[in-house]
């Protein structure tokens, strides 16, 4: 919204349409090196699916983008603005990080809704208190968003009274409420019963059709193939192979990717 427009005019022409750029990202937990130099660019409107085995570093990579995890080294550029980093990888400017974070909306595997607030309160929380949008405006928009994800009649309900699928759709509405430049999904359907997966995937599919920029960590290969325009295969902290979905799924080059696909398909 407002903030995006401002930074775009200032950005260089070649970064104009860039939503997320990760350069040579490294991350270690103690002596365990989880990310060993990952570089990735998502243009605006891109849907990038990130696949890979358990422990390959998918979540860590996603969480480094908004600094929920402190990178060990590398560069993160969001909508043309680089996150200022100290030599140790931590964000150098807290205010800048908080401003950039408002452009990145994350959807978590465990939903992470605020349980003491109703769905409506969950959705307006950040717009009202962080983005300082007038309350009435935020509420009107929240009702629209809840309708969009099929929860128009649940605005006054607390999260604990909803199914996992409903909670995850509410979490998506909460993410949309900040009108993010890019959305980060970390296995949004992995905690759901099989019969609830479809409803959440439908909402995400709708967002892809709207042209939302998304990074999507998922184990749903069929879905990744359907909605993504770029697929990244992570193996032990490195990008082993990436490309358009048809190439990745029909004509994988790397032996490891072939093996991985045959094990999950």
């Amino acid at each position, binding site marked *: 919204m407002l903030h995006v427009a401002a930074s775009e005019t200032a950005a260089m022409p070649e970064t104009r349409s860039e939503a997320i750029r990760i350069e040579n990202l490294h991350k270690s937990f103690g002596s365990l090196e989880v990310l060993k130099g990952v570089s990735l660019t998502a243009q605006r409107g891109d849907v990038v699916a990130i696949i890979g085995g358990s422990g390959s570093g998918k979540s860590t990579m996603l969480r480094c983008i908004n600094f929920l995890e402190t990178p060990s080294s590398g560069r993160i550029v969001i909508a043309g603005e680089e996150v200022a980093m100290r030599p140790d990888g931590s964000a150098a400017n807290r205010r800048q990080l908080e401003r950039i974070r408002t452009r990145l909306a994350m959807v978590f595997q465990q939903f992470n809704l605020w349980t003491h607030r109703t769905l409506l309160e969950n959705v307006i929380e950040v717009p009202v208190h962080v983005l300082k949008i007038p309350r009435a405006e935020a509420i009107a928009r929240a009702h629209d968003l809840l309708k969009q994800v099929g929860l128009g009649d649940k605005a006054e309900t607390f999260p*604990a009274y909803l199914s996992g699928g409903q909670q995850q759709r509410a979490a998506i509405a909460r993410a949309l409420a900040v009108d993010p430049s890019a959305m980060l999904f970390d296995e949004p359907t992995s905690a759901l019963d099989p019969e609830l997966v479809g409803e959440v995937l439908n909402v995400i599919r709708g967002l892809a059709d709207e042209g939302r920029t998304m990074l999507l960590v998922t184990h749903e290969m069929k879905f990744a193939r359907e909605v993504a325009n770029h697929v990244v295969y992570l193996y032990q902290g490195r990008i082993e192979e990436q490309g358009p979905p048809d190439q990745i799924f029909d004509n994988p080059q790397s032996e490891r990717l072939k093996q991985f696909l045959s094990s999950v398909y």
Partner: protein
Amino acid sequence: MQAFFDMLGLGSSAELLSLSPPGWGGNLLRGLANSLKIALGAFGLGLVIGLFGACGKLYGGKVTRDLLAVYTTVIRAVPELVLILILYYVGTDVINKISEAMGGDRVEINGVAAGIWVLGIVQGAYATEILRGAIQAVPVGQIEAARSFGMPSAMTMRRITIPAMMSFATPGLANLWLIATKDTALLAVVGFSELTLETRQAAGSTRAYFTFFLAAGALYLVVTLLSGLVFARIENWARRGQPSLKGAR
């Protein structure tokens, strides 16, 4: 009223407890008011200390954490009566030394203020542990979600962490409040005229020990019962959004 007490053979008790002299009821109620003032002040001070203490223990540097560990360990290890004696006499002594060093006179320490400080410091140690546990019980994902949307850390504390931990903290805090009301009785040892001291004086002067201590007991009981009602409402509010456990038995 008088007739009712006479009927029960308690006519003399009613006279002794009457609110205006020569009855001692007024003194008892004044003592109760002082006790409640101190309990409320100490509880409030304890909550403030506890919140900072809990944050310090969870998010502070090594020095902060060590200092807080000493504070909570010492306060919880030493009997409250001893602590009150130490804090009260050391506290007044220090204040007087400072006052004299600055060329002033010895200051008269206000009993209520002293009581609040002394008990507040004791309450703070327990509150630190209660709130630390409650904050740790908040699912970390809820805090991460707030941070991921760019919410500053102080706002996250105020808008997310504290409301979410309230349901974990209220039972412990309710206990702490009841302890505060009863610990005020310990201030009798430093000559502070709260309910217990007033009761002892009334009983001593009239030799009606049974009547007065029973009356004081009843007053403490009423405070406890009313507190129970208040905390039930607070807990109800703190647990909003959480399904009742009744169905899950």
